[in-house]
C-alpha cells in the first residue's frame, strides 16, 4: 500500500525564531532531496521551502518508518539540537489529508497572506528540483500537476487571487492607517529580492512617487531602480537615508539585524519626529524588534502583518469556503485515481474493457449473420472468450507480480495509459502540466524511467 505523507511546519505552527533557523538552513546549497537514495522507506519526495514554510511531501509503504526517517532528515538538515522538540511545531498529514493540504498550499489558502501569488511559483520550483533529483515518480508527479491545476482553478473560479492580499498589500493598508495619504511619502527598499520588488510594485500602484533602492549588489539595485524609475543609494549609507524616508521595506538576507535601536533613535530628532514605518519582510529579521518602542516609529515583521491580514481574511471567508469546496472535490477525484493504482482495480478494468469490446463485436457479427444456429453462436462466444482470456493472461500475471513491489504505482499507471483504461478522470492526465517546460521535463523523466 502506497501512502502519501506531508510533514512540515509553517507560520501557524512554528514561531519566527524556528523558521529563521530553517531559512538559514535552507539557504545552504545542499538540497535534502539528494539524501533520498540513502533512505530506506521513502519512495518519492518533494521538498518545499519558503520563508514561511518547510514541507516534505513523500510517499512510503510504511507510515511509521517513513515519517520517522523524514523527521531524522529534518533534524540533520536543519541542525536542530535533539533537545528541542520539533514535534510541537510539526504537522503530519496522511494520504487524503496530505493531498488536501497540498492543494490548499498551492491555492494559497494556507499562506500567511491569503491568496498571495508567489507560493505557486515556489511550488513549481520545488517540483522542478525534485524532477532534477529524480525523486518524483508516478504518484507525486500526478499529485503536483494536479495541485497546479487546482491552484489555477481556484484562482479563476474564486476571487481569492484577484483580491490578493499579499504581505505587501497588508503593508500598504497599514501605511494608510499611519500616514493617511501615502502618495507624497518616500519609500526605501533595502535589499532587492523578489519580495521587495512585489512590495514596491504595490506601493507604486497606490500612487507613491518617490522610491529609493539600497542593495548590496549595485547592479541589482540599478536594475530595480530602472524598472521603477527610482533612485539608488549606496548600501552603506542607508542609515543616513533614513532621515528623509517615511516607509522602509527591508528584505535583506542578513543574518543579524541591520537596523538597531540606537540607529533609529539618534535620527528621530533630525526627522523632527515624523512617523517612520518599517516593514521587515526578511527572515531572519532585519530590524531589531526593540525599534518599535521608539515614539512615532512602527515596526512590522512578517508575523505582525499576519494580524492585519486576519482582518481581511474575515471579509474573504466566503471566497475561501468556495475555494475549499473546489479543493475537496479535487481531493476526491485524486483519491479515486489513487485507488485505481493497485493491481486489482487495474486488472478488473482491463478485463472489463476487453469484455466490452468482445460483446460489441459479437453483437455486430451476429447481426450480420442471422442464420447461425444456437450451437454455432455458442461456439463463437467460447472462441472469443478464450482468445481474450489467453491474450490477457500474460499482462495480468505481469501486473500481479509487479503489485508486490514498491514500483507498482508506476506500472499500474503505465498499464492504464497503455490500455487506455478510463478512470473517470483520465482526461487531464496527458497534458499534465500547466506550463510547458514542466510538461517536457516530466515527460522526458518518465521516458528515462521507462528505459
Amino acid at each position, binding site marked *: 500500500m502506497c501512502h502519501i505523507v506531508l510533514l512540515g511546519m509553517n507560520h501557524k505552527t512554528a514561531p519566527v525564531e524556528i523558521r529563521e533557523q530553517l531559512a538559514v538552513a535552507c539557504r545552504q546549497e545542499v538540497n535534502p532531496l539528494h539524501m533520498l537514495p540513502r533512505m530506506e522507506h521513502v519512495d518519492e519526495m518533494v521538498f518545499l521551502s519558503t520563508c514561511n514554510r518547510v514541507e516534505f511531501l513523500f510517499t512510503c509503504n510504511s507510515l511509521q518508518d517513513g515519517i520517522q526517517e523524514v523527521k531524522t532528515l529534518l533534524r540533520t538538515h536543519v541542525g536542530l539540537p535533539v533537545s528541542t522538540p520539533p514535534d510541537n511545531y510539526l504537522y503530519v498529514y496522511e494520504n487524503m489529508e496530505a493531498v488536501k493540504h497540498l492543494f490548499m498550499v498551492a491555492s494559497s489558502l494556507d499562506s500567511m497572506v491569503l491568496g498571495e501569488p508567489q507560493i505557486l511559483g515556489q511550488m513549481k520550483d520545488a517540483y522542478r528540483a525534485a524532477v532534477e533529483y529524480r525523486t518524483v515518480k508516478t504518484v507525486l508527479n500526478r499529485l503536483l500537476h494536479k495541485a497546479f491545476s487546482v491552484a489555477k482553478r481556484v484562482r479563476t473560479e474564486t476571487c481569492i487571487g484577484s483580491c490578493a492580499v499579499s504581505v505587501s498589500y497588508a503593508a500598504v493598508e497599514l501605511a*494608510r492607517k*499611519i500616514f493617511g495619504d501615502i502618495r507624497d511619502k518616500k519609500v526605501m527598499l533595502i535589499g532587492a529580492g523578489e519580495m521587495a520588488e512585489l512590495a514596491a510594485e504595490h506601493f507604486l500602484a497606490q500612487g507613491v512617487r518617490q522610491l529609493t533602492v539600497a542593495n548590496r549588489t549595485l547592479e541589482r539595485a540599478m536594475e530595480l531602480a530602472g524598472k521603477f524609475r527610482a533612485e539608488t543609494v549606496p548600501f552603506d549609507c542607508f542609515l543616513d537615508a533614513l532621515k528623509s524616508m517615511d516607509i522602509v521595506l527591508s528584505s535583506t538576507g542578513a543574518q543579524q539585524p541591520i537596523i538597531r535601536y540606537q540607529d533609529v533613535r539618534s535620527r528621530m530628532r533630525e526627522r523632527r519626529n515624523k512617523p517612520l514605518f518599517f516593514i521587515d519582510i526578511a527572515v531572519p529579521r532585519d530590524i531589531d524588534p526593540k525599534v518599535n518602542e521608539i515614539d512615532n516609529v512602527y515596526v512590522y515583521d512578517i508575523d505582525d502583518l499576519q494580524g492585519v491580514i486576519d482582518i481581511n481574511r474575515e471579509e474573504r471567508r466566503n471566497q475561501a469556503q468556495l475555494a475549499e469546496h473546489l479543493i475537496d472535490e479535487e481531493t476526491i477525484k485524486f483519491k479515486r485515481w489513487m485507488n485505481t493504482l493497485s493491481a486489482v482495480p487495474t486488472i478488473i478494468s482491463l478485463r472489463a474493457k476487453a469484455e466490452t469490446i468482445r460483446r460489441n463485436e459479437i453483437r455486430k457479427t451476429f447481426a450480420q449473420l442471422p442464420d447461425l444456429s444456437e450451437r454455432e453462436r455458442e461456439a463463437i462466444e467460447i472462441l472469443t472468450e478464450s482468445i481474450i482470456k489467453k491474450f490477457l493472461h500474460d499482462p495480468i500475471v505481469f501486473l500481479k507480480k509487479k503489485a508486490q513491489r514498491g514500483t507498482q504505482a508506476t506500472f499500474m499507471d503505465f498499464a492504464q495509459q497503455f490500455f487506455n483504461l478510463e478512470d473517470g478522470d483520465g482526461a487531464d492526465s496527458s497534458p499534465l502540466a500547466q506550463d510547458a517546460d514542466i510538461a517536457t521535463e516530466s515527460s522526458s523523466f518518465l521516458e528515462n524511467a521507462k528505459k
Partner: protein
Amino acid sequence: MEALFLVIATLCYLCGTVGYLVYLYHDRERIHWISWSAMLIGAVFHAGAILIRSVQIGQLAFTTGQEAISLFAWMFVATYLVLQLRLQLRILGSFVSPLAVIFMLSTSLLPSQILPKSELFKSGWVILHVSTLFLANALFALAFSVAIMYLLQERHIKRKNFGFLYMRLPPLERLDSIGHLCLIIGFPLMTGGLVAGFAYASIVWQSPWNWDPKEILSIVTWIIYAVLVHERLAVGWRGRRAAWLAIFGFSVILLTFMGANLLLKGHHSIYTGKM
C-alpha cells in the same frame, strides 16, 4: 421657555450621542447624517436658550456657573459642527457628542439662579475676554477628543492588536494634524483672551494681576499650551507625547473652569455673585 429649550437641546445631544455610538459600529453615512443633524438641532435650541437668558438678564449669559458651562458646551458643539463640515472626520462625533451630553447634564446639577445685572460685565473687554477664551477652550476640548482617538489608534498600531476600532479610527497623521490645527488656532485665541482679561482688570482694579486663583491656574494652563506649541513648532514634537500633553492641558482647563468658578474664592467666583 428657556428651561424647555435646554431640555430639548440636551435630548437632541443625547440622540446624537446614541446615533454616533451606533455609527461607531455601523459605518453608514445615513446614521452619521442623522446624528449630525440631531447635534445641529440641539445646538439651535441651545443657542435659543442662551439668547433668551441673555435678553432676560440684559447681558451675555455667562455669569453663573450654570450659564458658563452651558455657553461653553454650546461653543464646543458649534465648533465641532463647523469643523466637521471642513474636516469630514465623521468618527470624531462619536467622541465629541458624549462630552457635550456630560457638560449639559452637569449644568442641571447646578442651581439655576439669575444674578442681578452688574455693570462690570457690560464692557466690551469682558465680552472679548469670555468669547475668545471659551472658543479656545472649545478647540482644546476638540484637541482632547482627537488626542484620545490618537492614543487609541496608536495603541492598536504599536501593539499590533487590532480591535474593531482600528478599522473605524482615522490614520494617525490625520489625527495628529487635526490636534495640531486645534492647538494652532486655540492658542492665539487663548492668549488674546487672557490679554483682554488683564487689560480689563487693570482698568477696573488698577492692576492686571490680583492673585486670583483662576488667574494663577489660567497662567499655568497657558504655560502648558505654550510648551506644547513651542515643542511642536520648534522641536517637532508630535504623536503620543503631544496627545498626552493635550489631554493634560485640557484637564487643567477643566480644573480652572469648574474648580475656580465654583470652589475657590476670587473675583472669578461669579457664581456666588460676590465681586
